């Protein structure tokens, strides 16, 4: 039986075509994914270099000053002086990059990586005010979606399975060989099942081989555990489609009926369920638009300016060690920064509320939609691939949260030293807060 099937398979011209097509699709998709990851890695490299250069330059100058080789910079050039916490922790150009390093199998799925940033520049009082982490891809392309492995495996693979299996039984009938088959001493359903199981194994082995080849060629890890996860998920996902093929085939209808029904199932799970659930989610759990968010933010900025007097009075009462200057012209640069911080803190507190409210509503919608992933294996599989590639929404949300924590740590360190009027030493340079290394 097995021998016969293999012979059958090797003679079928469609199988050759299918294998060649899959090879091309997988190679192209892996290439695209690899390209994206390489671009990310190159950018990360640049960021690190930029950051290191800034801090190395300042440290070198400071070192010379400490060794008495150089005079400390005059007060007027404070913004260049490596001794001040503000210079290396708050002003433009300073700051440390918090980076989300691509996972070993990141190339598998673009996921949400084209929407969310994978790095932020963190300095006192702001997360990426420079907004140098915008995604500059063409929005038309982003909306269109990428030709990545996730696309090939989630969308194309079921179509190929359908093409391979939709007429197993009906073709026999249409060719007139069904009576012959029926005359043989076997159960027709069992025969169908055997054929499908064989095809199932064939497809899975084929994809495993092609993926392994493609990964090896592009230098993507084959030994990482997530590769095993990928194969396992794939085995389950393709099982679902073969199951569907079995169901439809065993109805014993015509080839065109089978093709239509299976494509109907495909459409239902890939397009109709996700889009309907999305429609429901947005209708039932609306996220207030960012238009409102922006106006609220604006109103708050004005509010902060109007409250300036109160804010500053409270600040100087609490920090009696600082003397409040009567006029603007008397103020030193330190006074400017201190008062600026006081105002920022006030604004940030109010902003936090709006942000949290917004996030809560966005999360409610996400949770609702995620609950429906079990309704469609297509959604489930796509989400699984995103998780394997670590390009899912949760990864980015967690990253953003960590960045916010890091920003607090960074701010506390430099602001703390600044408020105590401390000067930095080269020893401090080694102890600046660091965004934690990628931990699992």
């Amino acid at each position, binding site marked *: 039986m097995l021998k016969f099937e293999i012979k059958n398979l090797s003679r079928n011209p469609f199988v050759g075509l299918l294998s060649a097509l899959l090879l091309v699709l997988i190679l*192209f998709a892996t290439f*695209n994914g690899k*390209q994206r990851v390489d*671009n990310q890695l190159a*950018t990360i490299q640049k960021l690190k270099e930029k950051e290191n250069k800034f801090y190395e330059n300042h440290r070198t100058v400071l070192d010379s000053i400490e060794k008495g080789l150089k005079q400390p910079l005059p007060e007027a050039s404070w913004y260049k002086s490596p001794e001040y916490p503000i210079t290396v922790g708050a002003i433009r150009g300073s700051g440390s990059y918090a980076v989300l390093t691509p996972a070993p199998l990141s190339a598998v799925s673009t996921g*949400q990586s084209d*929407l969310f940033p994978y790095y932020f520049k963190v300095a006192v009082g702001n997360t990426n005010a*420079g*907004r*140098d982490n*915008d*995604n*500059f*891809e*063409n*929005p*038309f*392309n*982003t*909306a*269109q*979606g*990428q*030709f990545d492995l996730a696309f090939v495996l989630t969308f*194309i693979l079921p179509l190929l399975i359908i093409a391979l299996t939709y007429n197993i039984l009906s073709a026999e009938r249409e060719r007139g060989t069904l009576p012959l088959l029926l005359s043989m001493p076997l159960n027709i359903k069992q025969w169908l099942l055997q054929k499908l199981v064989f095809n199932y194994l064939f497809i899975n082995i084929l994809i495993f081989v092609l993926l392994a080849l493609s990964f090896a060629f592009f230098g993507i890890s084959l030994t990482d555990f997530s590769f095993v996860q990928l194969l396992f998920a794939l085995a389950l996902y393709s099982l679902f489609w073969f199951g569907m093929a079995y169901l439809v085939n065993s109805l014993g209808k*015509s*080839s*065109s009926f089978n*093709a*239509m029904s299976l494509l109907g199932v495909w*459409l239902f799970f*890939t*397009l109709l369920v*996700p*889009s309907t659930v*999305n*429609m429901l989610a*947005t209708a039932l759990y*609306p*996220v207030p*638009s*960012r*238009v409102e*968010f*922006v*106006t609220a933010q*604006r*109103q708050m*900025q*004005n509010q902060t300016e*109007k409250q300036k007097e109160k804010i500053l009075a409270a600040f100087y009462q609490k920090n009696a060690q600082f003397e409040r200057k009567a006029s*603007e012209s008397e103020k030193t640069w330190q006074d400017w920064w201190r008062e600026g911080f006081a105002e920022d803190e006030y604004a940030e507190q109010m902003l936090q509320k709006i942000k949290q409210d*917004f996030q809560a509503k*966005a999360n409610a*919608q*996400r949770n609702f939609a995620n609950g*429906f992933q079990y309704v469609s294996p297509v959604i489930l599989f*796509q989400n699984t691939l995103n998780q394997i590639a670590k390009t*899912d*929404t949760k990864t980015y949300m967690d990253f953003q949260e960590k960045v916010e924590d890091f920003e607090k740590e960074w701010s506390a360190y430099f602001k703390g030293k600044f408020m105590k009027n401390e000067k930095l030493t080269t020893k401090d340079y080694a102890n600046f807060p660091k965004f934690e290394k990628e931990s699992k």
Partner: protein
Amino acid sequence: MLLHIAKKEWKEALRDSRFRFAAGLLLILLFASMVVSYNYYQNINQEYQQAKQTVRQEWEGQVPKNPHSAAHFGTYAFKPVQPLSLIDNGLDKYLGVSIFLEAHKQNTSQYRQIADQNDLARFAELTPAFVFTYLVPLLIILVSFGTFTAEKENGTLQLLLSQGVSKFQLGLGKITGTWLLMLALLLPIFLLGFIFILSSEFQADDLLRYALLIITLLLYYGIFVNLSVAVSAWAKSSNVALVGLLGFWIVSALLVPKFTSNLSKMLHPAPSAIEYQAEIKENLEKGVDGHNPFSEKSKLFEDSVLQANKVDSVHKLPFNYSGLIMQAGEEHETVVYAKAMKKLNDIYFAQLQTHQASAFLSPTILVKMLSMQIAKTDLQTHYDFSQQAENYRIALVKDLNYELKDNSKYGDWDYISSDKDFFKKNIKFDYKPVSMTDTLKNTWASLLFLMVWFTVSLVAVRVILK
């Protein structure tokens, strides 16, 4: 004769339970998506109108301050909502909703809605345009893949031909029948859309656009009808015809657009944000910096101003030099940003052209691009909005810098305009929508392309049904 055949097609389709089911489902989807889109449009339009007002109020009611500080305080331009977005919201969710307008720099639009939405939005969004562009062709295939093959299989084809009809006439009749069937099916939905547009804040030009959109769709459906009939006439069995047509749909709707998306990036790579900003920074340093009077360029500028006014110090100038150098810096910065933006937009445009070129395999991508262009929810409309916002920013900042230059003394950073209503008198952002002429200029090539598709598909019918 033609009508007789068409009528027969129609009757047969309506008798087919598969068709009734699929058509019913499609109509429900269209109806639901229309209603949801309309609701959504109303909401965001209201938000937009309110935000526009609030932001202006906040500008006018800001704490009195130095005009240049006000320029740093900045304001926002919000992107208007297009009435036709209730049919096709195009790239709206992938483009930012607002642009922050401030001194010294041109910002890109912020807050793409897609990033705040649940993950399923990435699969497909159930909008009328989605159903029109992707699902209706499937219904056409469903209703007409067997139009000839079934006659062949049942042996009725010979019967028909023996009555003196030519094959081509028969084909034309089937084409007319299917096409009219689609028209009849969609007419209520088109009408509903029409009513919704009438009850939105539309302009006369939107009705014209809607008509153009419907014509585009009907032409597109014509292509699918022609191809289905042609393939059905050519194929030996219904099964082959169906699989062939579905294959074409998959290529046209799924494979080619995604493939081209990556291909266009390979051919015309967009810069990363880091590269983009590094280039801007480099170019900015080549000119006057309003906030750094000690830079080489600023010094040169100062000398030229002093010479022109025949004084030896900025204190002796008849106006506030700070305002002048701020404005000079602003003008330099404006040029740098405009160049960078244009360069980026040119890359996007080249990428879109790659998509357009790929339409020889995919009429779907053509219609997708056309429909968002007609609905003014495409990239070029967004770029046009960005430019208008930028022009407004330039005018506003100039107002503010000149107030500083003409009415304050050098070094007086505490200066507050003596005119209490100064901020109220500042120029307002007045958005001018993209005109129909501009849209036609941008879309004629695609429209022509679509007509070529239609003609070729009709010729295919003629050739096969000789």
